[in-house]
């Protein structure tokens, strides 16, 4: 018999991560996908745009560069693009507010499920410091790659994917290709 409760508290014992045992297990991925689809569709019909993430980080970087060295920012079309016309605050930006929401929403979900606590997410075969180093390097690659691609998994993948954008699909396939091609070298970190 179908029980909604069982579906929502999806039991996934094989994949409960070491050190990340949770009172409630993650929800069934297809149900989560459906809910994410509803959020994405709502964004399209309410706003006429999709979800994003990396753009908000760029605003923070551009404002930071402008604060430290205004000459550098003024002479650079990339940073300038995130600073606006100088009349409005660059943080009064749709994506910045959406990402703030993501952080709040993520915390609420984690707190409800008893997952909001300080831990290091990694496999059993790697030290914390090595994991931190790889996280930093991966983050750097991500930042650079997302700017080169004009968006990330949210802006190009989800949004571009659902709107059947050619560039979005090319990006998504390249992302999975890059990750799978490099997964072998990272196996000690995760498995």
């Amino acid at each position, binding site marked *: 018999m179908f029980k909604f409760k069982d579906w929502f508290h999806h039991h996934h014992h*094989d994949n409960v991560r070491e050190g990340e045992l949770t009172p409630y297990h993650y929800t069934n991925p297809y149900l989560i*996908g459906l809910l994410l689809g509803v959020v994405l*569709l709502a964004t399209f019909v309410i706003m006429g745009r999709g979800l994003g993430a990396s753009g908000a980080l760029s605003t923070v970087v551009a404002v930071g560069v402008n604060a430290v060295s205004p000459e550098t920012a003024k002479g650079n079309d990339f940073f300038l693009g995130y600073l606006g016309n100088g009349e409005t605050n660059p943080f009064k930006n749709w994506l910045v507010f959406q990402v703030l929401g993501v952080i709040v929403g993520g915390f609420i979900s984690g707190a409800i499920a008893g997952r909001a606590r300080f831990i290091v997410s990694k496999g059993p075969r790697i030290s914390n410091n090595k994991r931190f180093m790889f996280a930093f390097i991966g983050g750097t690659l991500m930042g650079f790659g997302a700017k080169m691609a004009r968006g990330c998994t949210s802006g190009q993948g989800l949004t571009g*994917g659902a709107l059947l954008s050619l560039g979005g699909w090319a990006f998504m396939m390249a992302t*999975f290709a890059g990750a799978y091609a490099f997964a072998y070298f990272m196996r000690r970190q995760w498995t």
Partner: protein
Amino acid sequence: MNLPLFKFGYFNDEVSLIVAFIIGIAFGFVLERGGFGSGRQLAAQFYFTDMRVFKVMFTAITFAMIGVFYLSWMGFLDLSLVYISDTYILPQAVGGLILGVGFVVGGYCPGTSGVAIATGKIDAMFYGVGGFFGIFIFGEMFPWIEDFFNSTHMGRITLPEYFGIDYGIVLFLVILMAIAGFTGADWGEKIMAKKKLAKAKES
């Protein structure tokens, strides 16, 4: 019904920021609830042990894609008013490759790192600092990579337009691909689970 609401002037820029915050909360909640706040959970995708990244992404894409198609076919949604970013095929493919490597090295993508930081993953905080650094490097290098960044510009182009196939047929093909992908993902997970079990029995 006139959709998208914002484009038809139902509310102003100030209100749109509140809408952004609320949509963000829903987005973040769903991501965390799906397990996307854990780097190890996300990376499992690339070792075929837990394919939820693929399952969640493609269920979401398929649902929203069908919704957009249906609403515009019914005349409720003006699809030409929905922003689709221009395609620059080469820089997007190269950027995707770099981001993909960053995904498996770092364990997150930009959005999921926000959720991970919010739930206290210390590694995600290092990832976030790296993200700012990567964007800074891109910005500093921008004068040298600007030509490549702006190359192969193809405008606002969709798969149906590019391949000259009907929108509905592309939709159908994506749905088929998703179903095949889900079946393959479930099958892959089962094989990896069996392997794990066999290994555990040996030792």
